[in-house]
């Protein structure tokens, strides 16, 4: 098979890139392949990256100078989504149908899987756990829950689409691509629950960077995404080298 993707996949398996027992050292060694990787190794070895503080007292720092920053950015957003859906799935609005409850349970597990994947993948380079602020959400109200879910999913799509071109390593771009289409499937489902047929209402997503005349979905730069997401995140997020 002359498939780049498959070759990449087997390469990653051979390297046991994200195997916890191998850990960060080989993760960085893998990143060290290629010219850009040398800088990654150097950056990854520094102790002052801000990723070493699990309590996050000083907030979380996303350093966008390399792919670790982008992946941690994704990790932060997945933490936010997972926390939201865990709360919804544990006590859904009374008006949710059995099918809705089941699908929100599914989505909850998807987001947990994404969160835990990034945590495992980033290993010691991962930022700590974010503290969320859902005080603006009425979890007993279907409208509030669905509206928030739609906002999170559309924002997630915009975030991955906008951050993808920042990635320098093809395997990371592919991983982001594997996740963003699942977020888009969620977004379409939630949108259809709110108003059937709005699954890809790109005009309504113009403020998130979508372009209906080109048939293009949302895409936003990290600063804009974080500015929207900060309503729901208590932990201070510092952004550098954007």
């Amino acid at each position: 098979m002359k498939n780049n993707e498959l070759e990449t996949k087997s390469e990653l398996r051979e390297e046991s890139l994200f195997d916890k027992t191998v850990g960060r050292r080989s993760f960085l060694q893998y990143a060290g392949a290629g010219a850009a990787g040398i800088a990654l190794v150097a950056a990854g070895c520094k102790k002052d990256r801000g990723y070493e503080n699990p309590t996050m007292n000083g907030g979380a720092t996303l350093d966008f100078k390399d792919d670790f920053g982008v992946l941690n950015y994704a990790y932060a957003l997945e933490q936010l989504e997972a926390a939201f859906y865990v709360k919804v799935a544990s006590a859904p609005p009374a008006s949710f149908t059995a099918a809705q409850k089941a699908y929100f349970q599914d989505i909850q597990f998807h987001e947990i899987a994404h969160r835990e994947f990034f945590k495992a993948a980033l290993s010691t380079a991962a930022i700590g756990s974010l503290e969320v602020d859902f005080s603006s959400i009425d979890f007993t109200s279907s409208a509030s829950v669905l509206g928030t879910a739609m906002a999170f999913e559309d924002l997630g799509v915009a975030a991955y689409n906008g951050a993808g071109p920042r990635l320098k390593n093809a395997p990371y771009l592919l991983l982001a691509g594997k996740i963003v289409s699942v977020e888009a499937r969620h977004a379409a489902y939630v949108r259809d629950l709110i108003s059937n047929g709005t699954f890809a209402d790109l005009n309504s997503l113009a403020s998130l960077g979508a372009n209906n005349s080109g048939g293009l979905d949302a895409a936003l730069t990290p600063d804009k995404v974080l500015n929207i997401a900060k309503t729901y995140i208590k932990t201070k997020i510092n952004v550098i080298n954007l």
Partner: protein
Amino acid sequence: MNIVNILEEIQKVDGEIYERLNPRRAAMKSFFNMGKKISLAAMPLALGSMFQKAYGQTALPAAVVDVLNFALSLEYLEYHFYNHCIVGKTAGSSVTDVTFNFPNTASQAAITTIRDHEKAHVDLLVGALGSSARAPIAYADTDFRAGGAFASVYSDYNTFLAVAQGFEDTGVRAYKGQAGALLGSPVLQTALQIHSVEARHASHIRQMRTAAGTAVYKPWVSLGASGQANDSGVAAVDAVYAGEDLTVQAGANIVGIGGNAGITKAVAVESFDEPLDKASVVTIANLFLRDGKKL
């Protein structure tokens, strides 16, 4: 039209984009002025021609041209598939072989929306490729009955939706499979924005299939009822889902990850959409193209 955003994104990978567009920047000014006058529908074409001018023939590398033409072929196929249906359901149409009826106006509206997006993608890619664009694919070049495998595609609504789901899920996989080849190219951003729109389409088509029958199709790609990769219930499209049942991502086993027992194999499969390599996508696409017109 977020052309300013697009240009900003390009500037990140190509700091000289504005200079390329015009050394004296006067053309940029005139372009924005023009943008106020021309219709929104014409914008993708205008944008495409601007990129073409900026990068010229040499600046769109052959590998990128190949990817865009590959994507263009798929978009032509998707467009014709939906367009034939919508034209056939239009009163007084010369297309008479679309004999099924939509169950309601919402379903026809959804197919129209998807058709319009596919057309926009075709126009955008043609514009971006300029003179490097492949020859257009006409409806007459296609065979959505796939030589009889889907003989009822335009006479049975469920068959139509089943094929639609195959197209959309294939489209998502195809773009994902090519993203790496666009790394560092200014067209990557655009390709990503098309990719997630196809995923939204796939989600909705799956919901339409569920609404139309008795079986349930999740909006996301799950595990088949017997544990197979193909969850569509249509064995003829096994190739569309080959490898979708991957549960190990970059060496990390997703099943039960982080001690979460709720993350079953099905959840692990659903959480990550898999790419499909070009050769496999071409094989699928060729099922719907006539001899002499295959990719």
